[in-house]
């Protein structure tokens, strides 16, 4: 992070890296897992037969892995804002970059149409099974389409309001989804082993021959799109050169294995039907997954509905998100009309790009389902073909200048093989849908026309293809480092005295960081648009701090401010965060009053947080006349605390004089009332946070309750315990802790 001379210049911006390998893998798996095994099962069996489906999924996975390795290599060399749009601009040129963005926009939107229709099909089917649609005519084409439009509109609205697709919650949801599919596959495998006669379900193995397998591979290729989104997270990933390529490759392997397993389990699970099992399954088309589930597991159709609901929901959300993001980028760079690059003032999301993508998506809904899947697949095949061209060109043109974190093996055989195979698969799609071959190349031709007639002369000059401010963190020079997140001037200025006191007491320095939350739909490269009054607050606060106490100030762009603070604490090796939780000691302060803290109350119950609270209280109390009172309220159920021993221990550890500390033990059944009564006479209350995640989860905590009820200036302290930075407060000389006046 670029430093600045304290008080003289605006803070420098930087990006927050929050996503680890697990998050990245789950991001890729979550984008892919919704389509193939779950939704395309019936269509695959229809096209390639039972064995052909397994072979097609496996071979598709292999071809996808070749392209994934190309993405992995490029993202390791350009680990920032690494969409195919950027790769193509860097490796080939502006026209190809535009084509890549143009194709990606359409591919994502049409894939979204496909998922919306599937979601609608299953929802309508569930309602029909529950007997709620008896009053409607049997032909449900228009009903399915209308529900699909409603679903698309709902998710467009959700994206407009701003959603997160990268958090721990979505990672866990993807993990649960994958685990459910693996369970279905394993269940089918066990049933197969217990009843070997089910081998008949796989006969004939390739009823449509190898041509059927290739057609199926082409149509189902859409099931392997999604991993490329990992490359787009380059500016948010921890150790991007290492984690991006790993996550891209792992996610393709996980998804392929899951697809093959689920396909095997479902086909093996069909029992008691007339005629060959695969023909029965194929007859249901896109509803085949639900029907096969009903045969495999009791109430399986309902489980299938839930699985499809989750899968299609996440896929629909992700495709709308991707389509909006890429069209926004095209508008921002004036490759398309600049209106697409506008950002909503109210929601901070690219609302025009979102609206245009939604229109495209809704138009796709009215195509026949096979044409829809084929059109989406063909566009992704072209897109991935382009990615392989890019990896070849990048090594040839820029290989000597790039720094690679990964170089794919068997180069250039694998990218060339991927190009050839993807071309073959695209050609085979014509057997299923000639319309896809009209729509796909037609869209590309229209794009090239737009580029040469419109975008070429208007596109903004390539200022910096890869935007990322990733400057080094300013070293603290061995000082105790206090990190203070800044929202705005009103929030931060009242904290300046406490900052100063902590910095002076520990002979440390303050680092001010303003966190700018950027909506997911907007690349972090454009985050500077969101840097609002926090910058002013940071500058203003830095004016009140002496230059020797201000280590650094910065603006950090992030998706999630809490995680951004944690990132900054790690990157800057902070010893204490004032205001948030972190892996170091944390003090959350509610400031108030201007007088020195003469009478500081510390309610204690034993444990590391109480000790840390006493230590911080000793630092905050007035060094000459301040008195710290450790108060323990003894109830029937609470364990006794030796208050004298606690105070002595803290004083010894932190090299502070015990003269300024006193201890009191009161016996009562309502600790809250006693603490609040005692707090009324204190200038400052310092509380240790409640320990134990389970306790915090299931019950209201006493410190939290007191913090809400107490009107005095208050600090809640949480100890980092064993994770604490190995330079504790105790290592500092006593005069620095207690001030020059302390004996």
């Amino acid at each position, binding site marked *: 992070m670029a430093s600045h001379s304290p008080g003289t210049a605006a803070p420098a911006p930087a990006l927050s890296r929050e996503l680890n390998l697990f998050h990245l893998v789950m991001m890729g798996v979550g984008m892919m897992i919704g389509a193939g095994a779950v939704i395309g099962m019936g269509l695959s069996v229809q096209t390639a037969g039972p*064995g052909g489906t397994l072979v097609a999924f496996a071979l598709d996975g*292999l071809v996808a892995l070749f392209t994934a390795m190309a993405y992995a290599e490029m993202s*390791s060399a350009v680990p920032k804002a690494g969409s195919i749009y950027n790769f193509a601009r860097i490796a080939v040129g502006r026209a190809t970059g535009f084509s890549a963005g143009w194709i990606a926009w359409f591919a994502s939107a049409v894939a979204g149409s496909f998922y919306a229709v599937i979601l609608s099909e299953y929802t309508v089917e569930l309602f029909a099974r529950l007997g709620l649609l008896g009053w409607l005519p049997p032909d449900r084409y228009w009903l399915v389409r209308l529900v699909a439009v409603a679903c698309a509109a709902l998710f467009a609205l959700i994206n407009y309001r701003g959603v997160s697709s990268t958090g721990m919650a979505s990672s866990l949801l993807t993990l649960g989804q994958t685990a459910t599919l693996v369970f279905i596959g394993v269940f089918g495998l066990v049933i197969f082993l217990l009843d070997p006669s089910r*081998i008949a379900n796989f006969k004939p193995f390739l009823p449509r021959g190898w041509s059927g397998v290739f057609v199926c591979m082409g149509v189902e290729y859409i099931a392997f799109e999604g991993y490329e989104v990992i490359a787009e997270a380059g500016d948010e990933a921890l150790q991007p050169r*290492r984690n991006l390529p790993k996550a891209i490759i792992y996610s393709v392997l996980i998804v392929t294995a899951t697809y093959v397993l689920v396909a095997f389990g479902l086909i093996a699970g069909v029992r008691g039907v007339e005629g060959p099992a695969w023909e029965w399954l194929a007859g249901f088309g896109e509803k085949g997954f639900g029907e096969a589930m009903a045969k495999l597991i009791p109430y399986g159709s309902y489980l299938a509905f839930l699985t499809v609901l989750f899968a299609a929901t996440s896929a629909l959300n992700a495709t709308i998100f991707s389509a909006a993001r890429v069209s926004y980028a095209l508008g921002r760079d004036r490759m398309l009309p600049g209106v697409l690059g506008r950002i909503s003032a109210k929601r901070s999301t690219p609302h025009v790009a979102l609206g245009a993508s939604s229109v495209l998506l809704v138009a796709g809904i009215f195509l026949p389902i096979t044409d829809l899947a084929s059109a989406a697949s063909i566009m992704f095949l072209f897109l991935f073909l382009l990615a392989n061209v890019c990896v070849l060109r990048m090594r040839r043109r820029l290989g000597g*200048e790039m720094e*690679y*974190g990964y170089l794919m*093996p068997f180069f250039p055989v694998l990218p060339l093989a991927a190009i050839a195979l993807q071309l073959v698969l695209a050609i085979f799609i014509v057997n299923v849908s000639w319309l896809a071959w009209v729509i796909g190349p037609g869209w590309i031709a229209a794009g090239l026309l737009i580029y040469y007639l419109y975008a070429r002369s208007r596109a903004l000059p390539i200022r910096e293809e890869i935007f990322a401010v990733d400057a080094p963190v300013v070293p603290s020079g061995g000082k105790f480092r206090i990190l203070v997140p800044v929202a705005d001037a009103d929030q931060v200025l009242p904290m300046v005295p406490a900052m100063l006191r902590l910095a002076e007491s520990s002979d440390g320095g303050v680092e001010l960081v303003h966190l700018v939350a950027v909506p997911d739909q907007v690349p972090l490269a454009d985050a500077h648009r969101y840097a609002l009054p926090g910058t002013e607050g940071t500058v203003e606060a830095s004016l009140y701090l002496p230059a020797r106490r201000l280590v650094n100030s910065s603006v950090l762009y992030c998706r999630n401010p809490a995680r951004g603070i944690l990132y900054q604490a790690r990157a800057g090796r902070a010893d204490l965060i004032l205001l948030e939780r972190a892996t170091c000691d944390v003090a959350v302060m509610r400031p108030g009053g201007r007088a020195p803290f003469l009478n500081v109350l510390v309610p204690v119950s034993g444990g590391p947080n109480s000790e840390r609270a006493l230590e911080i209280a000793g630092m905050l109390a007035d060094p000459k006349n301040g008195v710290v009172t450790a108060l323990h309220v003894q109830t029937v159920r609470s364990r006794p605390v030796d208050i004298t021993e606690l105070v002595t221990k803290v004083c010894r550890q932190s090299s502070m004089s015990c003269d300024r500390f006193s201890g009191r033990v009161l016996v009562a059944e309502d600790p809250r009332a006693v603490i609040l009564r005692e707090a009324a006479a204190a200038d400052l209350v310092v509380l240790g946070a409640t320990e134990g995640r389970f306790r915090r989860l299931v019950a209201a905590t006493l410190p939290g309750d007191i913090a809400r009820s107490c009107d005095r200036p208050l600090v809640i302290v949480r100890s980092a315990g064993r994770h604490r930075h190995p330079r504790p407060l105790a290592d500092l000389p006593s005069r620095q802790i207690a001030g020059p006046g302390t004996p």
Partner: protein
Amino acid sequence: MSGPWRDTVEPAITLLIMDTEFIGGIVLVAAVLAAMIVLTVVSRARIERFHREGPRPFVPRIRGDRRG
């Protein structure tokens, strides 16, 4: 061999081995998955090596030169 093995797994294996078309197909699928795993393992090793030794530019291999 007794009980469950004789009644379930043994006939299953016999049936599977007899069915060459099915076995051939499954072996093909397994081979493809195995190839994917090998590529993944090789890639992982490269990533870790590059991470350990630091990122590097691409140096085209010259005949007889193993540096590339």
